[in-house]
């Protein structure tokens, strides 16, 4: 009996490898390749210190994605709350013994690994909420009582992340949760109510919720010229880099703003400036198109999914990805204040890349499984 079960598992694992979404994988590779080129340029035409390391990380992330996709969705479904609980524990651990980095306790050291629990939380929250709404009867979604558990799932990590303080991630967590609520069928007027309440709370948040540097960033964002050499420097210089790139750019390795070190964080959050200065509007549009392609593949996967869990996981991951891209692009383009959000799959750094690729793997796993595949998520 047991042996039979095992052999069944093996064949299904093999079958699963074949169901990887190659269109999505290829699009992600395109985006990462753009990153390699830009990092090579940002280092002044050298593979070190950034491009080579980034390639290695992408390799690892790709492997993680494939492995994640090959695992049956049933398992992810069962692990959902555990993942959420573990992420909360990690956030608490970071709170108490985190490694200081960039003025906020966002890192936790696990041996040689440095982990950003707030990144892990983004995916864990999506999976936990998807699990929850999968179990709720559709007609019950409209009840307020039904919405209390998922609100708890959201507010605990959001409060912890806000305390770090990491405003960008808090906003992302709330927005992604909101989208899942929305897709699960929560009624329109409830969103309107929350929105109105939030607007009313703005003055309170301003006074009590924000750190001095966060206020400064917001004020500088509203009027960069007030402090051209201080905090407004990032914004102004990034805009000059973009604007001077023009339609076709100054050419590979020829960006003066970049190579004279005017653009700060040019290999991480402001990497779009490298792209736009050296490859112009054409380059920037090409990257936007690649992002559009990724979103398209995720949309198709969400429509393909047969379970509510699968649908919500895929669209949650898609929206997380979209938020990364949108916030970063808008920030560099001067439409949003400076918050520490990387350009997804392109910026230098392993954690966000790993998070997103893991999310893509989850989406692939969740989209192709379910009752239709003969494997019920729950045994009823």
């Amino acid at each position, binding site marked *: 009996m047991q042996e039979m079960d095992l052999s069944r598992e093996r064949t299904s694992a093999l079958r699963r490898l074949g169901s990887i979404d190659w269109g999505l994988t290829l699009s992600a590779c395109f985006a990462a390749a753009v990153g390699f080129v830009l990092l090579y340029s940002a280092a002044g035409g050298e593979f070190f210190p950034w491009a080579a390391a980034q390639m290695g990380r992408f390799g690892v992330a790709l492997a993680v994605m494939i492995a994640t996709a090959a695992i049956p969705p049933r398992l992810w479904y069962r692990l959902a709350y555990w993942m959420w609980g573990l992420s909360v524990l990690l956030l608490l651990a970071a709170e108490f013994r985190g490694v200081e980095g960039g003025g906020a306790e966002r890192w936790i050291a696990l041996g040689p690994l440095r982990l950003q629990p707030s990144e892990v939380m983004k995916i864990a929250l999506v999976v936990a909420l998807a699990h929850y709404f999968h179990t709720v009867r559709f007609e019950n979604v409209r009840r307020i009582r039904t919405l209390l558990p998922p609100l708890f799932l959201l507010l605990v990590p959001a409060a912890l992340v806000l305390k770090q303080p990491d405003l960008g991630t808090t906003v992302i967590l709330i927005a992604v949760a909101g989208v899942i609520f929305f897709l699960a069928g929560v009624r329109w007027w409830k969103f309107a109510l929350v929105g109105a309440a939030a607007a009313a709370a703005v003055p309170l948040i301003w006074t009590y919720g924000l750190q001095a540097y966060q206020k400064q960033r917001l004020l500088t964002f509203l009027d960069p010229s007030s402090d051209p050499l201080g905090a407004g420097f990032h914004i102004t210089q990034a805009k000059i880099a973009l604007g*001077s790139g023009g*339609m076709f750019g100054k050419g590979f390795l020829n960006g003066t703003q970049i190579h004279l070190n005017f653009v700060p964080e040019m290999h991480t959050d402001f990497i779009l400036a490298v792209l736009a200065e050296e490859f112009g*509007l054409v380059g920037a549009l090409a990257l936007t198109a690649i992002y*559009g392609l990724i979103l398209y593949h995720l949309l198709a996967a969400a429509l393909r999914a047969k379970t*509510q869990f699968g649908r919500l996981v895929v669209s949650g991951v898609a929206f997380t990805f979209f938020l990364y891209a949108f916030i970063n692009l808008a920030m560099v383009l001067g439409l949003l204040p400076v918050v520490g959000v990387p350009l997804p799959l392109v910026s230098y750094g392993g954690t966000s890349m790993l998070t997103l690729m893991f999310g893509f793997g989850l989406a692939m796993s969740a989209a192709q499984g379910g009752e239709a595949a003969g494997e019920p998520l729950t045994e009823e």
Partner: protein
Amino acid sequence: MPISENIDQSRKFTRRLVLLMGVKGLALAGLTARMYQLQVRDSERYTTLAEENRINTRLLLPLRGRIFDRHGRPVAVDEEDYRVVMVAEKTGNVQQALDRLAGIVELSPEQRGRVLREVRRRRRFLPVTIASGLTWEEVARMEVNAPDLPGVLTERGYTRVYPYGEEIAHLVGYVGPVTEREQKEDPDRLLKIPEFRIGKQGVERTYDRRLRGRGGTQRVEINASGRVQRELGRKEGTPGDAIHMTIDMALQQKALALIRPHRAGSVVVMDIHTGDVLVMASTPGYDPNLFIHGLRAKTWRALQTNPLGPLLNKAVSGQYAPGSTFKMPVALAGLESGAIDAGARFDCPGVFQLGRAKFHCWKKGGHGPVAMRDAIKRSCDVYFYELALRLGIDRIAETARKLGIGVPTGIDLPAEKQGVMPTKAWKRGYFRDKRNKAWFPGETAIAGIGQGYVLATPLQLAVMTARLANGGYAVAPRLVADRPPGNRTAYRRAQDGFRRLGFDTANLGRIGEAMAAAANETGGTAFWTRIAETGMEMAGKTGTSQVRRITAAERARGIVKNEDLPWRRRDHALFVAYAPLDDPRFACSVIVEHGGGGSRVAAPIAREILLETQKRYGSVAERAGLDLDFARRAGGSGIPGDIR
């Protein structure tokens, strides 16, 4: 779950998902519109901004902290100097410009190679340093030839200068350009400035962080080629801290004058109470100033391959068999463990038989029956073979390690060697081959006279002597004072600052008495080099450490005199001493590599330097309560007893 409900759910999801996708599409479209606005519509404005108006922040080098000796004599300072830099973009033909420059300033092929490499590697509008440390004459010639040398400029900068050069090179060390590895290990942004110099050796390296200071910043507007248009703001950095060494340069020079006539060796003088190292001389040396402007490869190779090791600070990096200077720890171990009492006599017939092996005394006929005092005074070897065997190596090691043999002293210098104080466990761990792992009694016997595996640095020998002389306190040597002269607190005795080693004071007294006898009584090995000045007498112990093995056959033929051997195979001459006898204050160790006998070669040096030191500083008894600056101020006011 009812099917209809499931379909409702799915439909609602799809409807809302498509709506959401539409929102996303709109948002991305909005972003592309903004891209168009910035990159096409307003492009011209931003292009102008990028071309003309660039604000750059540059790091300003802080002045490196100065280093002084104990009396405030500068031993390392930053001096203004002139350098030639080239902006490749303006120069055009770099090769040709270098050819022309070679007629004006001295340019080695290595320098040219480095300049060409840097020009290739860096942006063409950034200046590359061609040569530094220019003389006034060279600067003047540069200025005259300026029209022929576009893009070549003279700039003012600072260079590290060591006024005492070779005389303190091993202690101060030198600074040099930052290596890639140093940059990796140290995140300080200063290290990224090409002109920054980091401590490579000596105190410059140990105290680099304190000497370095903090960089300032300068905000400048630069044009399209990276050239500075005007300065917008400036925040000066903080210069590095000054470092005050415990060394007395005048004494150091005196010690060097004494040791230099010999090919290689070292002299250490330290205060037995405070641990202040007054003299640490090692010969031969090198000129640290040579390292500042980049050393010629040939000079570097010559320094490195010189068999006399000029780059090595022998006082902390040279390891020698301590020879008979090791007899004090063995004797003390004997008394402390109760294995013998001071009156016990061993008969010395000139040779000691252990199984089939014979161990000889340096004195052919032997010393006859000797007790401890005489055994140290006349340096009888047989007494110590016998004593060592009674003690066993591990008990000897215990005492010797307490005195500092085979233990790093923790001196504030890089590259300190720790010597070797063997034990049975050490030998088991040290040798791979099983046959070599066992400890043999013969090895204990020769360890008793400081031969065999025992190795000590000259500084360790000075520390050992200091600990014997200060009443058994764990004094540790130091090269840098925590406060500048003038602000120092009253002279502190060892018991105020260091832990007791746990030796019986009476036993220490017996050892001291024997050392005093060796250097003051007829028949003592150092009697002929005694200090005759009343109140300044020293106690000492000679040592002659064998470099070669004397075979039985050779002994039968008659031992070849050291003078007749090639230099490399001659014995090392050692001497350790402290002074004055009454309330001691200074300990000294002298090693002359391959110098021959300790009493003949090393002892006279120790005598001279200890005498000079006492003349300058006096004994504790006279100067109690005075700060260490006494000598200088006494020279001016002549009033002793000025207590702070």
